[in-house]
């Protein structure tokens, strides 16, 4: 019997190694795997490259992980949200590396990693500072730049409901980066509030087939807390 549901946070986090690239889902607090980030803080892996839309806020979650000196590099589209105090301080002090990626390019680079595409061309960023060091090329009279895929060791994501095969259903705007991150990582760990018996999730509503999911942990409260 396939059973991807794990019973403890320790089991969920097992084997995450120092030096890993870790994708962290969510957009704002929606679909952000708060419990799993706490679990990663507890687990202890360090020298991480984290990929998330923002660079953390306050002193919890991703910001806390950075504050503990566990993040070597962050790849994100929007490092300076209100409250990104930890990032700002570490960055000024030269203690964290930053790669800024346009939001759509970031999503597409992960989708590419999941889809076996090592590189693709996009008009986004062509001719801007973010094109520096990237191959530029003209197609049909327009300039594009080549972007590489962004594969990862681990994805921490949040969904609404799962079954033991790891199929995932999301809620409202809770999809955001989660389904593409699930595709891009070798080890995808999902936190969900609800677990349904196999066969009870509507096949037409499953956005992430269990094929992309390795472990599912049920948590009492998801993000945002409702």
């Amino acid at each position, binding site marked *: 019997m396939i059973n991807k549901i794990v019973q403890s946070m320790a089991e969920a986090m097992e084997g995450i190694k120092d030096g890993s690239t870790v994708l962290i889902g969510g957009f704002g607090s*929606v679909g952000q795997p708060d419990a799993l980030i706490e679990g990663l803080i507890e687990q202890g892996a360090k020298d991480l490259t984290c990929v998330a839309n923002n660079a953390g806020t306050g002193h919890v979650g991703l910001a806390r992980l950075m504050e503990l000196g566990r993040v070597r590099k962050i790849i994100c589209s*929007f490092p300076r949200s209100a409250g990104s105090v930890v990032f700002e301080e570490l960055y000024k002090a030269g203690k964290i590396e930053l790669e800024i990626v346009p939001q759509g390019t970031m999503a597409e680079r992960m*989708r590419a990693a999941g889809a076996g595409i090592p590189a693709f061309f996009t008009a*986004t960023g062509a*001719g801007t500072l973010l094109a520096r060091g990237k191959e530029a090329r003209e197609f049909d009279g327009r300039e594009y730049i080549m972007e590489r895929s962004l594969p990862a060791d681990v994805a921490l994501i949040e969904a609404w409901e799962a079954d033991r095969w790891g199929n995932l259903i999301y809620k409202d705007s809770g999809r955001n980066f989660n389904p593409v991150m699930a595709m891009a990582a070798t080890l995808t760990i999902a936190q969900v509030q609800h677990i349904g018996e196999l066969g009870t999730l509507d096949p037409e509503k499953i956005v992430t087939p269990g094929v992309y999911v390795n472990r599912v942990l049920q948590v009492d409260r998801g993000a945002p807390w409702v």
Partner: protein
Amino acid sequence: MQPFSRPQMAARAAQDIPEGWVVNLGIGMPTAIADHVPLDREVIFQSENGVIGMGPAPNANEANPWLINAGKAMVTLRPGGSYVHHSDSFAMIRGGHIDLCVLGGFEVAANGDLANWATSENDTAPAVGGAMDLGAGAKRLWVIMDHTTKDGRPKLVDQCGYPLTALGTVNRVYTNLGVFDVVKGTGFIVVDLAPGVTLEYAQSQSASKLHTL
């Protein structure tokens, strides 16, 4: 002279959005445009985080923290609305399926260049978000911004001084002084001026020639 107030600027832009367009509004002033589009004029508002067909902010009793827009504010979903994930959302944006994107701006140049994400080449950690995707991908790009900076420096320019967001894609600019089309080979063309604002005055506040038809 009665320059447009911010709500007036938003209302003026809203007035120019026809029924049926798929529209992405940037964070800040652009977001306010939606409030001036009557619900019976069906405009499909899309948000980078995968919401298609957003409606107005919810009443207190229908608040749903799982449903937010790109500015992280709670919204509603209109009948006919749907959800996609981030890659599908940006496929829609980058693939040219958004009829209109409205962004804020630091500078707009006569050739349609937009600078709105970084204030200096030396700012090593600017936040780009989805601006470059939207700037390069939308069918039409409008910018809504004050005509000058707080210290009076013109924001309509011959060439952007700030780092670029997108090259040659701005079609129209809404400012407190008026509405200006950006036309390849010509530059800024005056579409409308705020009540009492003369062409001479608007020109004095601009660092690029304002043309009239």
